[in-house]
């Protein structure tokens, strides 16, 4: 006989399977809550329980093994209408694979009910041990009894912050308990304890469901947290996470007008190398933008270790009066090395140079190179200003772009106000 939520009473489970009771009690509980089947989305996992889909009159989403809670999270975040119910069905295998997803749903307190059909083993694949198999429980892969204790899903999800957590013995009519969990605002986690008739009963004869749970230290119970829910239809979510009036990323870009001349008549490649925290990338950006203000084409890219706060920091800049397609770099025309780490990083390139210029801090040993070497004290106003100082020095020494273009970019970016600029310029002018 069909109900509002089930189109048949002949559900596709083995005789005596607890999944049958979970489905029928769920249908009853949803009726008790006055929900319409089209207000309910049931997301199912892989496992015996997952074949319930075709018997449901609700919307159904059937995904991958262990990922149903994560999939349902997306649904929960996307549903904007209030009054919709999201149910997730999964087994103890899916819960083992997807434990992080369940913890995450509890942490966020997502508006969904997660029903774990825990029959203590993997039923669909032959009765193997799962992460929820109690210690001592026998399975096809633990004939002498499972060696390890099971995860306590209720304790884990309660600690993570789910609003409502309960463990239910899957015996008889437990629709009242399900309805109580399903009406929760926020995340409710329902662990329904079952015995698989094909494998659990066979390998653990004469053991009672309630006794197994009790001996495992996981009896029935209800645990709650008083927390606000998080979901797509919640006003708190909409206010905090939906940005209906986002602006174009182009609005934040500085349009650079051509104001200065450049003497460059062919491509020119520059490497700035120093240490993290010494303004290398900032100086490279200033030079690149200044070059644009001189009508040049430019590319710029940084290179640094994954730990961006220590070690070398380097940047490659290509300048050209012509369109730049390929923006890699073989042997640079100019290298600026302002620290030991920067010098070490660019040493191979410096040694390959048969011409060009090496601008190097005077504290560093000059490597063998075919480049013209110009030493200078870039660190006299602190290491953090070394690269910035070098960017002005570069303009002065090469004449490719005027010093004013560099200073202009420092001014417009607000950098100038943070620098001892007069002292830096005075030091440079003394050179």
């Amino acid at each position, binding site marked *: 006989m069909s109900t509002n939520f089930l189109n048949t009473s002949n559900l596709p489970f083995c005789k005596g399977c607890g999944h049958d009771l979970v489905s029928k009690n769920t249908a009853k509980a949803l009726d008790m809550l006055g929900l319409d089947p*089209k*207000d*309910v*989305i049931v997301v199912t996992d892989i496992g015996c329980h997952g074949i319930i*889909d*075709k018997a449901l009159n*609700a*919307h*159904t*989403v*059937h*995904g*991958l093994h262990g*990922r149903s809670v*994560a*999939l*349902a*999270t*997306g*649904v*929960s*975040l*996307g549903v*904007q*209408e209030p009054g919709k119910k999201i149910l997730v069905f999964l087994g103890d295998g899916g819960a083992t694979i997807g434990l*992080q*997803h369940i913890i995450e749903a509890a942490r966020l307190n997502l508006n969904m009910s997660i029903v774990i059909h825990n029959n203590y083993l993997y039923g669909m694949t032959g009765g193997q041990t799962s992460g929820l198999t109690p210690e001592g429980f026998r399975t096809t892969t633990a004939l002498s009894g499972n060696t390890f204790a099971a995860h306590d899903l209720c304790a884990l999800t309660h600690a993570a912050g789910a609003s409502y957590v309960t463990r239910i013995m899957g015996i008889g009519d437990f629709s009242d308990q399900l309805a109580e969990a399903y009406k929760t605002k926020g995340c409710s986690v329902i662990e329904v304890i079952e015995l698989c008739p094909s494998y659990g009963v066979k390998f653990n004869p004469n053991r009672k469901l309630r006794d197994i749970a009790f001996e495992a230290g996981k009896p029935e119970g209800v645990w709650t947290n008083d927390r606000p829910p998080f979901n*797509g239809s919640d006003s708190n979510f909409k206010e905090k*996470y939906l*940005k209906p009036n*986002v602006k*174009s*990323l*182009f609005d934040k*870009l500085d*349009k*650079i*007008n*051509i104001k200065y001349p450049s003497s460059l008549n062919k491509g020119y490649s520059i490497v700035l190398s120093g240490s993290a925290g010494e303004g290398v990338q900032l100086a490279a*950006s200033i030079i690149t933008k200044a070059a*644009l203000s001189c*009508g*040049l*084409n*430019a*590319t*710029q*890219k*940084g290179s*640094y*270790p*994954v730990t961006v706060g220590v070690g070398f920091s380097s940047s490659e800049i290509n300048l050209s*009066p*012509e*369109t730049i*397609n*390929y*923006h*890699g770099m*073989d042997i640079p025309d100019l290298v600026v090395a302002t620290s030991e780490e920067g010098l070490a990083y660019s040493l191979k390139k410096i040694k390959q140079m048969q011409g060009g210029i090496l601008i190097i801090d005077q504290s560093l040993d000059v490597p063998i190179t075919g480049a013209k070497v110009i030493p200078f004290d870039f660190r006299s106003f602190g290491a953090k200003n070394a690269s910035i100082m070098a960017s002005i020095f570069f303009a002065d020494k090469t004449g490719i772009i005027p010093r004013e273009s560099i200073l202009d970019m420092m001014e417009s970016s607000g950098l100038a106000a943070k620098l001892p600029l007069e002292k830096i310029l005075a030091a440079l002018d003394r050179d």
Partner: protein
Amino acid sequence: MQKNNSQESVLIDGSRLMIEAMARAGADTFIGYPITPANLLYLYATQRFELMLPAPDEITTIQWMTGLAATGRIPVTATSFPGFALMIESINMAYMMELPMVIVLAQRLGPATGTATCGAQGDIALLRGMYSGGFSIPVFSPSAYSDSWTMAGEAVRVAIKLRTPVVLLTSKEEVMTHKNFDISHLPEITATQMKGFDLADEYRTYANTEDKIPPFLAVPNNKHQIRITASTHDTKGILQHSTEEAIDNTLRLQEKTMKYLDDFTHYDLDEQAGATKLLISFGITALAALDAVNRMRTSGEKISLLTIKTLLPVPPVYYEIMDKYSNIIIAEENSTAQYSKILFGDRLPKNVTHIGTFGRMITPSDIINGGAE
């Protein structure tokens, strides 16, 4: 000489262009887990998409995206190989469910974690075989910054139109390099809408319509029951073993992609009269190819250039173009000739030369020297 005379010149990176283009094309959601070199995409997404949420890992990323897509949102993410590898089963799921999304894959040097801050073009073979059954995922590969704009928009359009995941394949050098660029001449991108459904009709989530694209209804719907599944299913979305209807439904996924391949085939062909040599490239290497061709022509060599933007499935027109040349050079930044082998199999024909590097960009000189007759 092409002086930068633009008064609209800005310093921009490929990541910004891609995110802006995708947002204008109709993507409204970004779910992601940060990974180098895709971090700029992630950063811009926080500023540009109506909904942006950080996921705890890349499997979760695609799962959340799929759930959101089921409710009618158009999600995007960005990752690199280590994250993409985790995503593959879930992208298969979204493909079977016929839900749209775009995955930006910023390539870096592998295998495994490899070098996060070194570019590469090493994930092409993976993309070719990522669907069980050998089915095809549309893969677009921008090279010039103008392509970062148009192909990103196209990726969203195709994802929506075909109800399918799409990969926008890029690399570290494209998404992290700043370059002067004139944004005032970018072509307009308009948002694409999902194929709708007349609510008066009977709804089947996977109806086999003439155009191969089932109409879409978001969950939940107050009138029609919606069934979405990643398992083999009939047109109603009910799990089946291997019934004729279910097998036909699965085969329709590939038929759908191939039916519209012409519609999303994009390439640039610069043919030189009298040339017998054709240089083929894509992505970041296409920029080196452009310079190489210019230099070769300046030195008197005749050569044509095919810049591929629709990487997969391979459009038949590429073979028609190649058939006109006796000497074919394929430049790609990997050591294993991945795209070359996709085109020609493991034994490359004698008239096909692969130019590859591993751990560094291919230079114009690499191409000129490697392609010398």
